[in-house]
């Protein structure tokens, strides 16, 4: 899953280039420029991907290590 998440981050960076809507002036729902909607979608997708990162790629060992070190210091 870890590789999937980092793959999705890379995919976001590629999709962010958005060359397909570069010259498209379509107004979605009659008011939202399509490239702006697409990039707002990138922002929302980034939130979803980062949520997945906190679920599947979270470095739990870091916090455990800090707690361990602090406890050792307190005991000393």
């Amino acid at each position, binding site marked *: 899953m870890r590789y999937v998440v980092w793959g999705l*981050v890379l995919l*976001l*960076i590629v999709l*962010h*280039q*958005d*060359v397909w*809507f*570069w*010259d*498209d*002036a379509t*107004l979605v*729902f*009659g*008011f*939202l*420029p399509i*490239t*702006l909607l697409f*990039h*707002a979608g*990138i*922002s*929302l997708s*980034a*939130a979803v991907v*980062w*949520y997945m*990162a*906190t679920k599947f790629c*979270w*470095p739990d*060992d*870091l*916090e455990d*290590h*800090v707690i361990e*070190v*602090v406890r050792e210091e307190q005991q000393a």
Partner: protein
Amino acid sequence: MTQLVIIAIYLALLLALGGVASRLFRGTSSDYMLASHSIGPFLLLMSLFGTTMTAFALIGSTGEAYKEGVGVYGLLASSSGIIHSLCFFTIGIRLWSFGQRHGYRTQIQFFRDRLESDRIGLLLFPILVGLIIPYLLIGVIGAGGVINGVTRGAFVDYGWFEDYGFGVPGWLAKLVICGVVLLYVFFGGMRGTAWANTFQTIVFMVMGVVTFYVIADRLGGQDSLLANLRAASQAVSDTKLIRGEHISKLKFLTYMFVPLSVGMFPHLFQHWLTARSASSFKLPIVAHPIFIMIVWVPCVLVGVWATSDLAAVPDSIRPNQVLSYLVKNLAGDVLGGLLTAGILAAIMSSLDSQFLCIGSMFTNDIVVHYAGKDRFNDKQIITIARAFVVAIVAVTFLLSLAEPRRVFTLGVWCFSGFSSLFPLVFAAVYWRGLTKAGAYASILVAISSWLVFFQQSHFAKDPAYTFLGMMPVATMIACSTAALIVVSLLTQSPGEATLAKFFRR
């Protein structure tokens, strides 16, 4: 005058908040600089977001969209949503853990330890402070301009400040803003800063959305919100609804390197260290892109609407004045005052962290480091930090009086400088093979290339300057990365004891 009263009430509220935060001050230097590592997920989210969003988030985004069209969102906002959270995730959490384990308060303490080099601090210190000063000036000068702009005519009955359009003079506005930020940073320290940032972030997010709604209503003149939105957008020329010729594809791609600056901002390093636990980072990492969207999408739409005949913005209005102009003409005094409070909120929520951070750096990296840890007791360290905060606020205020004209363009250059140092922090966290010589080489190449490009851009006079069609930051990062890798491979790695402090087998 209504706007002036609203601004005064807002500033008084901020001072009151600083006063409450100062009552919780525990009297230790760790509490003053790092809030005793007590900041939970919500305050951390608001602090990090408020600190990374400057005046540019409201007035700059509207102005750039007015000038360049909707492409500005992809250029600056959606890219930041990806890259900022990437930096929080890959760099922030790890630096937080090093800070907790080894008691760091500043970036330079970390680099000195990680690279086994005392002198790296002397090289980095002037670079970091030098790059952050234009960033501070952007905020102070922006605040002065905004307050003068919205209060023009307020004192016409009294005949005061004629030279300043009968509004609050810019120098006085800057003095008041610096004074308010100084007071709550001085007394509240990092806790006061985090609380103030949270309050201010809520203010500028809410005001951005309210302003959007009101401007859509006035411009559209229809019965429903959807009809207003359609009327406003359909009056805009197609050239503002696309990226077209406004920017090249290569420049758009390489602009994505600019937000990497977040990985090396010293004030963000300090905010990261305030976190109560690593888990406190989860909310900021996930919510940051959404918060950016909530602030930027309405501002970008307002910016492109301003180009239509419905808004009838005169040619004499500069891009950065577009939002104030629309609010003043379409929304009335009360909303104008509230929006101004929102803009000041965005500005001050960056200024406070930067002032506190530079004060902490002077105290820890220069005074305490060279005088010796046992030379001062904890109360004296707090006094020194406060004295430096006062001095920095005073210097910033005095520099802001000179009003360097290209200060907004300088902002992108200062971000690029921080970005060019990103390979250093990334390698310091993840690569055991990084050596002291490799770090020196990377820093020197980053700053040399920055100086060369800065000179070629005629010292920021040419805002459209590119190198080989790319943003210069891309080349700076490539050069500093190459220097870091090549020199590190050719020189001796740090000792095992040092590596064991930072890397687990």
